[in-house]
């Protein structure tokens, strides 16, 4: 029995689903950000598994670009979070409902 590429992709799928469930259920903006990071990481695992399966280094390059985008996203997201917290003293996304109709 060997570890085929489907094993890695299935693991990545389950991790992605857990991350999606975290984004949908949690109300703490920080934990929601972490869940988004988990989803990005699971996609990276899929990219790298596919790169191994196809023998193409482009999959690893794509994963590197995903890491760059994730780093930029975390920087901006946490800055927004800190700005919101300084104004509202809360990290709860349900309280940010001023634009509600």
């Amino acid at each position, binding site marked *: 029995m060997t570890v085929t590429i489907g094993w890695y992709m299935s693991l990545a799928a389950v991790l992605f689903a857990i991350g999606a469930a975290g984004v*949908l259920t949690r*109300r703490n903006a920080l934990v929601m950000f972490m*869940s988004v990071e988990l989803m990005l*990481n699971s996609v990276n695992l899929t990219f790298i598994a596919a790169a191994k399966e*196809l023998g193409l280094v482009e999959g*690893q*390059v794509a994963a590197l670009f995903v890491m760059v985008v994730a780093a930029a996203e975390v920087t901006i997201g946490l800055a927004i979070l800190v700005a919101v917290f300084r104004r509202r003293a809360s990290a709860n996304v349900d309280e940010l409902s001023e634009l509600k109709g």
Partner: protein
Amino acid sequence: MTEVVLFVIFAAVALTGAVVMVTAKNPVYSAMGLLTTMFTMALFYILLDAHFLAVVQILVYAGAVMTLFLFVIMMIGVDKKEDTAETIPFQRGLTVVVGAGLAAVVIMAGRQAWVTGSTAFGAPDLNGTIETVSDALFGTWTVAFLSTVFLLTIAAVGTVALAMFGTPQLRDTKSEEAP
């Protein structure tokens, strides 16, 4: 056989870390769960011959990103209880259904050859050292690589702008209270 044992053990660790991250009440525990998952991801990258990306994973994610997360958690404060009341009815149940459905669909898709692109002939050996990755990065994908420079610059400028001009109200209330 060794690979199977390693995969099963570390897949269990990764899934445990992910579940802990989603379910933990305290954001610090969430961060620790995510950190565990990040480290096991790096091990999977090594198993998949992506040595350079495994190192980048540990340096960037486990090092920089998680430190940033923990810094913000400590700054914002972790002692506040999270309000878990549902504002949208049936949201929890829907989330379980949607998450399980998503996992099922992606697992099914991952078994199809037209999704994974795998052929019966196998693939050429891939050695994801820094040399092969940078060959592709600075050869074929130079323009994409250079555009990430713009992306990171914009992100840095945006963060500084948010920090400098993000809280006008706070400054007003402070100046009113001060005298």
